[in-house]
């Protein structure tokens, strides 16, 4: 399931809803992304996330479908927020559920790596020196590339 929303989410309630009524599920993996108070060496007082409505949902659904093709998942969830957020606020939740832990953990890692390089979101930071756009990190591309190497 995909959700793109301005409002916060309740991690406990989301994870409970994800597995409810499915006793086949033996493990749930989750990743929660938070707003950090540092960007490079500067203090960040707030972050604003902009996205491309329509394409965001399309890309997230494609990424989720790809994870379900690669691993035997019983359930998956991606929630991504947009708008203005402050340090400590939740940005994203990725959760995957499977009969065994390996598939859930790997699929969760895959989803957050791919989401960072494929989903059309852009961050701008507020610092004491003013507003600035966050630049892409080469490490993020490398993290996604790892999943394209066939073993």
């Amino acid at each position, binding site marked *: 399931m995909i959700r793109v929303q301005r409002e916060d989410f309740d991690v406990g309630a989301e994870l409970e809803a994800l597995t409810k009524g499915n006793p086949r599920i033996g493990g749930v993996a989750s990743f929660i992304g938070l707003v950090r108070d540092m960007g490079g060496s500067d203090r960040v007082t707030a972050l604003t996330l*902009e996205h491309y409505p329509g394409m965001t949902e399309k890309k997230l659904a494609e990424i989720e479908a790809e994870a379900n093709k690669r691993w035997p998942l019983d359930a998956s969830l991606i929630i991504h927020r947009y708008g203005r957020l402050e340090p400590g606020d939740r940005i994203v939740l990725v959760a995957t559920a499977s009969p065994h832990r390996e598939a859930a953990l790997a699929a969760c890692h895959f989803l957050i790596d791919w989401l960072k390089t494929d989903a*059309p979101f*852009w*961050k701008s930071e507020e610092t004491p020196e003013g507003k600035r756009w966050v630049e*892409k990190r080469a490490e993020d591309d490398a993290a996604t590339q790892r999943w394209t190497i066939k073993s």
Partner: protein
Amino acid sequence: MHLLYFAWLRAKIGTAEEELALPSQVHDVKSLLDWLKTRGPNYAEALKDLGTVRVAVNQDYVGPEHRVRDGDEIAIFPPVTGG
């Protein structure tokens, strides 16, 4: 064609979206970007380094050779930084 701009490309160009008729010299993404650069100093400045520009046609990422048609939704934006 319907053009959309995001993040600092929107800020530099000065508009979030616009509807433009497809000029005869524009047939793919590369020729579209070349033509847009001639529309004003704000476009030229925003598009001067195409290494930092990504393009989606009808909500899919495309390369410079991708064909552009009049009814397309074409989005131009910097590399994504979500998650």
